[in-house]
């Protein structure tokens, strides 16, 4: 299975086609009969793949580690496994150490290989990525491939994507039942799943770009699913266009890396080259910064996050699948996939600040703050997602790669569960998401939804021993913020994340208060939903509770399965340090979460802070802060009104005015000038001078003139006939001459 993983994305792609062709013929609201089984099979295959990955053989030397890479896909792997005979300076070192012949004196060139060699030809476990490819297209002397690269993180995402997708398919079959575009909905759900899996398995950066954009289109189509209302289609457009801005970064980043790695798109090769210092540091820095722009848009990082809350206009299961668990982590995945580029480009090791860490930690706090002023329960969760994605980006920025992926893993379950829970609430509260106006007291009416939501919330808040606790703790420890051993010492990130963790617990407590406690404030007849909705909720709650045990301190199963070890990933020698479990960090983060939650509990449930209520109405500073938050830091105003507004109206209008009056004016002016000149020549020269001379013989021409005039005034057909005759003549001449 490991070398045939292409089947996994191919299945939902087939599902998309089948749904498109036959979905409607199955009858109304039956399209899931195609989607669910196919995604189910993909899910099983993903589990099989994961099982085989776990059973893979370790203890390889560097040459063994590349033994499952198809020769034609990677220039670097070829060099390593052939002993580097044909390679240039840098690769020769690597090759010879891989043979174990020269020992430890070429450390700087190929540390990973050296490590393998020093430890006696491979007692250390190196991971063996499985790479397969086919020729895709050619340009010049180069061939570009399409293929799959399977390694720990790809396996992880395969499982996460298919699991959530399957649950969302099941959930949707009830949630959007009776929708007028039921078939379209399921078709795009399948297409999204296929695109995401394609992205995950991409063997090269070009393919990654393809997947990246395709998930964007599916997101566009699903956000705008109910496009009859303008706000929905506006949200869809906003999502697509904001992502396009980030895509410029992606495009340029990919291009820079392509040329930096000797005109090569291969992810494996780029990583190996970046990792052993064969790519110029400046180029790595430039491409990382460009790629960060792409991360900011796709993964909703501050200041390009504004599309993500608006994207909640789409159906809730879509928000759970695309805008919480999978698509928005594409940015995280991309950074993780090209980690050597960022690790060395941003000089993450031993440092205390870099762009990635700053973007992530600022997003974590600012996103969380915005969640406090939302009335719409989905928007709370959306800003929460923004904030949690900030955690992951920070983790990558501080060199805690495994922690980032681990948090991606746990977050996918509890956040998808929370979104589906919000959907369940709305499904029974008259399709409103306004938790302040239309919900309240749902604890008693919807017990299953309530309990699963509470579990998700506790996990998200990072309460021991639920999943969120373990992954968040690992990130905090990874910052090295308490002076513990870590890749760097990112105090700024540590403090920001601690604050964000406290906020998280607080706003989620607020959400639970509004939605589940107090009196019902809506006007419907809420009821618990059917099993197709509640079963996925329960499954996700269970996963969201226990997923953290995958990487228990000391055991670290997750780390061993997911984190690559080999020449294509930064190792200990380059400064990547795995932070150990730190009790002080764990206590501090728990205190922050409990403190935030407790404050919120006292404020909302106990109303212990009566003097604080309405504070923002009395205090000018607080009022200004609240207004700032309610206007989402005015970023939307800046983008929509100022930037887009000015391009769309004055700038475009000015360009068009220039086009019509200046450029076209010259053309028309030239035409008119020619007419005037012609008139002059005709009236003054022709009629007076030439014609005077001709007049004598003029009478002869009169009869033939009549003939000619027929052509001038005449019908198109005559023109056509004349024209055709000329062409035919040409043809005749040709035939005659050819003889």
């Amino acid at each position, binding site marked *: 299975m490991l070398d045939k993983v292409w089947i996994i994305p191919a299945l939902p792609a087939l599902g998309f086609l089948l749904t498109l062709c036959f979905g409607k013929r199955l009858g109304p609201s039956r399209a899931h009969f195609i989607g669910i089984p196919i995604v189910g099979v993909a899910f099983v295959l993903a589990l099989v793949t994961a099982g085989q990955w776990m059973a893979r053989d370790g203890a390889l030397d560097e040459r063994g580690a590349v033994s499952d890479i198809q020769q034609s896909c990677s220039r670097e792997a070829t060099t390593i496994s052939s002993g580097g005979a044909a390679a240039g300076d840098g690769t020769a070192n690597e090759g010879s150490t891989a043979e174990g012949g020269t020992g430890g004196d070429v450390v700087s060139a190929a540390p990973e290989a050296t490590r393998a060699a020093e430890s006696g030809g491979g007692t250390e476990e190196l991971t063996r990525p499985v790479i397969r490819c086919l020729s895709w297209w*050619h340009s*010049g002397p180069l061939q570009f491939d399409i293929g799959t690269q399977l390694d720990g993180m790809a396996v992880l995402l395969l499982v996460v994507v298919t699991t959530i997708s399957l649950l969302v398919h099941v959930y949707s079959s009830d949630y959007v039942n009776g929708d007028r575009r039921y078939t379209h909905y399921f078709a795009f759900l399948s297409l999204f799943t296929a695109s995401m899996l394609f992205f995950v398995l991409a063997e090269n950066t070009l393919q990654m770009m393809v997947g990246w954009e395709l998930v964007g289109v599916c997101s566009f189509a699903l956000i705008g699913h109910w*496009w009859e209302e*303008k706000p929905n289609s506006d949200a869809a457009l906003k999502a697509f266009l904001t992502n396009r801005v980030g895509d410029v970064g992606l495009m340029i980043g990919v291009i*820079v890396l392509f040329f930096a790695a000797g005109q090569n798109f291969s992810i494996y090769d780029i990583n190996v080259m970046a990792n052993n210092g064969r790519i110029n540091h400046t180029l790595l820095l430039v491409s990382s910064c460009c790629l960060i722009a792409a991360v900011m848009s796709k993964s909703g990082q501050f200041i390009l996050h504004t599309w993500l809350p608006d994207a909640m206009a789409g159906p809730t299961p879509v928000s759970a699948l695309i805008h919480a668990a999978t698509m928005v982590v594409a940015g995280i995945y991309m950074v993780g996939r090209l980690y050597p580029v960022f690790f060395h480009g941003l000089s993450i090791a031993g440092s205390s600040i870099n762009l990635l860490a700053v973007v992530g930690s600022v997003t974590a706090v600012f996103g969380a703050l915005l969640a406090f002023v939302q009335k719409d329960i989905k928007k709370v969760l959306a800003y929460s997602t923004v904030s949690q994605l900030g955690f992951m980006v920070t983790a990558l920025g501080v060199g805690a790669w495994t922690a980032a992926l681990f948090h991606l893993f746990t977050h996918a379950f509890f956040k998808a569960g929370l979104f589906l829970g919000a959907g369940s609430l709305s499904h029974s509260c008259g399709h409103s998401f306004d938790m302040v106006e239309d919900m309240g007291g749902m604890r008693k009416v919807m017990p299953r939804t309530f309990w699963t939501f509470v579990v998700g919330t506790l996990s998200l808040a990072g309460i021991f021993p639920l999943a969120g606790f373990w992954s968040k703790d690992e990130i905090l420890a990874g910052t090295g913020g308490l002076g513990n051993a870590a890749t760097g010492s990112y105090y700024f990130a540590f403090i920001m994340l601690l604050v964000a963790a406290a906020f998280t617990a607080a706003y989620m407590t607020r959400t639970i208060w509004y939605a589940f406690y107090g009196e019902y404030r809506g006007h419907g007849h809420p009821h618990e939903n059917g099993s197709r909705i509640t079963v996925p909720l329960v499954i996700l709650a269970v996963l969201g509770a226990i997923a953290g045990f995958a990487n228990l301190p000391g055991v670290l199963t997750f780390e061993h399965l997911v984190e690559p070890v080999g020449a294509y990933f930064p190792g200990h020698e380059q400064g990547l340090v795995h932070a150990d479990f730190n009790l002080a960090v764990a206590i501090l983060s728990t205190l922050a979460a409990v403190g935030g939650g407790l404050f919120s509990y006292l404020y909302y449930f106990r109303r212990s802070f009566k003097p604080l209520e309405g504070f923002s109405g009395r205090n000018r500073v607080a009022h200004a802060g609240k207004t700032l938050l309610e206007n989402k830091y005015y970023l939307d105003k800046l983008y929509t009104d100022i930037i887009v507004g000015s*391009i769309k109206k004055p700038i475009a209008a000015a360009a068009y005015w220039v*086009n019509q009056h200046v450029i076209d004016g010259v053309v028309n002016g030239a035409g008119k000038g020619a007419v005037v000149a012609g008139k002059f020549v005709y009236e003054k020269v022709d009629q007076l001078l030439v014609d005077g001379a001709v007049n004598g013989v003029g009478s002869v021409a009169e009869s033939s003139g009549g003939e000619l005039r027929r052509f001038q005034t005449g019908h198109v057909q005559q023109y*056509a006939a004349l024209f055709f005759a000329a062409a035919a003549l040409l043809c005749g001449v040709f035939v005659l001459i050819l003889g």
Partner: protein
Amino acid sequence: MTTNNWLLPTITFLPLLAAAIMMVIPKGEEQLHKLIALAASLGGVVLGVVLLVRFDYSQAGVPQMVTDKSWIKLINSRFIMTMDGLSMPLFILTLALLPLVVIYSWDHIPSPGNPKAFLMLILVLQTGLLGSFVAEDLILFFVFFEVVLLPMYFMIGVWGGEQRQYASIKFFLYTLFGSALMILSFLALYFLVPTPTFDMRALPELAKGISTGTQVLLFGGMFVGFGIKVPMFPFHTWLPDAHTQAPTQGSVILAAVMLKLGTYGFVRIAVGILPEGARKWAPVIAVLAVIGIIYGALGCLAQTDMKRLIAFSSVAHMGFVMLGVSTLTHYGINAAMFGMVAHGLITGMLFFIAGSIKDRFHTLEIRRLGGLLIQAPRLGWILGFCTMASLGLPGLAGFWGEFPAILSAYQPSDGLNVALFRTLMVIAAFGTVLAAGYLLWLFQRTAFGTPTEEFADDPHIHDVTLHEWVAWVPMLGAIVLFGILPGLMFNVLNPAVEALLRAGNL
């Protein structure tokens, strides 16, 4: 390889023959005229398949299926037709498009009617287009290049919109003006090479003796001629008028194939014969191309008419093509050639859709449209698909013309200013954002939402008809096919592009 290969002349003149037959059949036999046109176009497709089979793909860089006959002895101009990897995609596109246009014409003959004349013009046009892509003699090329003008002039002038007179005259004269400078360059070239000839196979070698200064001048003449046809900023103003006024079929052919005469000419003739001139002109072309990308996009944003918007988008798309050409690298020229075909398919489709919307709503004013997805859902989704293709979505054909072109600007050919080209690369990349902006904005305004009151209960508004399906499905299929398997085209183009660059030491 014999010099008596009749395949190319046969394919080229077949439409003309059909037009000749139609000329003697009375005007009233409308059905018969349509059938003849269809038969001729399908005949072309069959011969095209023969061509595809007989083409030697391992030798795609070498002229094949050569016809080389004495033609105009006086000026040593010969009747030479050949086919290689550069010509083939455009030649096949042209062949394949004709039956689709004829089928679409089945129930879409624009006012004032007269299918006989209309189809005859299309057939004559076809001969001109096909001939241009295979002619390997400058004079022969020029003849075909000019043959194209007249039928299009009449199509716009007779079957066009309200301002057809202005648009057709402008189109005709503007292009003719360019041609005049172009033929001047051709003639100068003829006299400057050691052994006077118009043979395009021999000229690259012979022209190496011409000094760089002279090459720059000669290239300048061709630059104006081809630049107008492309059209490059600032020679583009004929295009929106011509497109907006032309009947649907005219717009489709214009966008899909005719503009490519300019870009093809650039690659094959201007760059192919005068590489040193090209090197000097490259920065100018690149800057104008990128201005075209941004400027065309801004022009689109200012439009209120759907068809005019699509026309302006051509200016932007051709900017990407010319940016690729100007880098003088294999990435750039491959991308340019791919982009030509992709743009032909995608923008051709967009014009088809615009025509069909016009048929149903009798207006293309964006403000008055809306809710197309409700009234004609399939038409709406096809429009959505084509806007996605047009904005360069990976996985569809448009991407492969756009991305490698941007990529090529990172490392242009030796001797070109790297800093300039990299700056242009970044600007061009931002052009893709604007492209997404105007296309999605168009789609939102026309397809999303609910129908305007004016058309809400209009019984004439129906979904895609059978003729439309037959005409469109091949194009939609090709957009997907080339998007997923770009190698199908790149692998044919690439040997020819490499040969071209090798010959020019680029």
